[in-house]
């Protein structure tokens, strides 16, 4: 992104022809407009609507921060949903992501069949989360589910997906099934671009494998770490399909995304209220997005 720094001054004189300007105007204009209408406009509108009460049809009433007060004090599913989202984030961040990194490091050592390992571990990533949800039901179901059969609980099965204390864990495991492969592929690409000389130098200095990895290799993976971090956070905040496919996100599977969806397409559409939940989600994710962009900008400036 050397638009301002490198040779900008010398280049500026080379003007675009009128035809060039038309091409630029149209082909930049359309995507910008589209992104404004589809992404940024609605984001701002969500913030605005969160201070109103509206059923989508009648008049819009300004209610100030009432939606937020209700949300925090008077809406039973809210705090469980927040807790589940946080749990989801911790689970992906502390278990699935490090596991993906571990697999990447092992595969990167150049063992035989690495191509096979890589493909099979990556395979779940291409499945839709809805399908993952159905497969989870097949495996964890009460009547003839595989897990209950293996555990010998056919008479008195554990309700993995129905028990409000257990099901969120099962969903997180299922989500990790996909997340791990994704993280692994990203790290594999990152590891392959690490200069082998670095590792050699570390080995010559007498560093063991662990020291080499944590002190030498891992720090050079910073760009990948940033991306993986953002993906992990975003996945955790976006989690929706999988719980929705299992039980529409009820009974222990409440998530912020589900609450928003329920408030729009549920029986009573409470658009203002749904927007307030969306704003909470927005604020949390913005924190991470800004971190990511700052990293990117810094990288861009160095380039």
């Amino acid at each position: 992104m050397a638009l301002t720094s490198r040779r900008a001054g010398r280049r500026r004189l080379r003007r675009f022809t009128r035809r060039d300007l038309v091409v630029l105007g149209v082909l930049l204009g359309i995507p910008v407009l589209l992104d404004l209408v589809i992404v940024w406009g609605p984001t701002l509108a969500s913030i605005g609507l969160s201070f109103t009460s509206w059923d989508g049809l009648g008049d819009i009433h300004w209610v100030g921060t009432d939606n937020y007060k209700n949300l925090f004090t008077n809406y039973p599913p809210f705090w469980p949903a927040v807790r589940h989202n946080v749990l989801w984030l911790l689970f992906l961040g502390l278990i699935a992501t490090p596991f993906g990194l571990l697999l990447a490091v092992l595969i990167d050592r150049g063992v035989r069949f690495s191509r096979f390992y890589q493909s099979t571990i990556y395979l779940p990533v291409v499945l839709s989360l809805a399908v993952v949800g159905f497969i989870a039901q097949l495996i964890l179901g009460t009547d003839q589910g595989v897990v209950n059969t293996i555990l010998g609980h056919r008479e008195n099965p554990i309700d993995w997906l129905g028990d409000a204390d257990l099901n969120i864990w099962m969903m997180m495991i299922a989500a990790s099934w996909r997340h791990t492969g994704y993280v692994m592929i990203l790290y594999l690409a990152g590891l392959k671009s690490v200069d082998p000389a670095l590792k050699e130098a570390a080995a010559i200095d007498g560093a063991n494998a662990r020291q080499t990895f944590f002190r030498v290799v891992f720090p050079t993976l910073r760009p990948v770490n940033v991306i993986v971090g953002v993906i992990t956070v975003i996945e955790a905040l976006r989690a929706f399909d999988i719980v929705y496919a299992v039980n529409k996100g009820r009974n222990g599977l409440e998530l912020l995304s589900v609450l928003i969806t329920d408030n729009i397409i549920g029986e009573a559409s409470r658009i203002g209220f749904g927007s307030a939940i969306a704003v909470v989600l927005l604020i949390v994710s913005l924190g991470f997005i800004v971190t990511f962009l700052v990293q990117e900008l810094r990288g861009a400036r160095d380039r």
Partner: protein
Amino acid sequence: MSADISTGAPPRPAAAPVTVPKSRPRKGRWGVHIFLTAVSLAFLAPLLLAVYASLRPYEDTAQHGYFSWPHHLSFDYYRRAYTESGMGKYFANTLLIAVPAVLVTLFLASFVAFAVSRLKLRGGLVLLIFFTAGNLLPQQVIVTPLYVLFNKIPLPWWMSDSLMMYDSYWAVILVNIGFQLGFCVFVLASFMRTLPQEIMEAAIVDGAGVWTRFWHVTLPLCRPALAALGTLEFTWIYNDFLWALIFISNPDKLPITSSLNNLRGQFFTDYNLLAAGSILVALPTILVFLLLQRHFIAGLTLGSTKG
């Protein structure tokens, strides 16, 4: 930082990537193999079990459980899943959404990426941020206003039989394009940055306009990146669940991921049938992955391995 971006194929683990310390015994290797094999099997198991279940009649599994020897095996459930849920129609719906969405996204995104990374426009960085950040927002943040908006936009009959943007493919296609643009711009811009600048300079000397420099000079060099992104985007849009759930109300227009619900009975769900349905839904993405694995992985890693 090295600006290493894998193009078509992810670089093979170069001839001798790590000088394996001589002292490292064989045993470590075996441990790694056993561990990786176990993980691979664990990752494959759910899919294999779904395939296995889908091949067996309900009575068989009801009596013996899913984890038992089969007494009958047949592809009957696949036939039923296909016909009972009307999967052919839903598959066509998905293509109707995914194909235009992917093509338009790639086209628009590659131009934005070109402008941002190759033209040295002022404000290019702002543009890049504008798109990239948009893609990172959770979908639910933008879903409510879009729902309201689409309910207010009338469309002529020939475009949508609901006479509205809501409940039409246009809504889903447009949202997919708008939402995926950010990711594609981000990836393509970082790819184009690695192309040699001399080519552009030569084109400028030849008097090539912006369009020629984009379409005839830059795009042909981006084929690997476009193939990779196209594969990836197609799978994502194919797998999408939320947009159609919210913007489509006519059950006949739903895409394939939603058709699985048709296989659930009201009182009784035959999970073997559902398994067959799930496999059928997953099959195109699995095939795409197996056939175009390289592109797929390259697509995912294009954006991430830059310095």
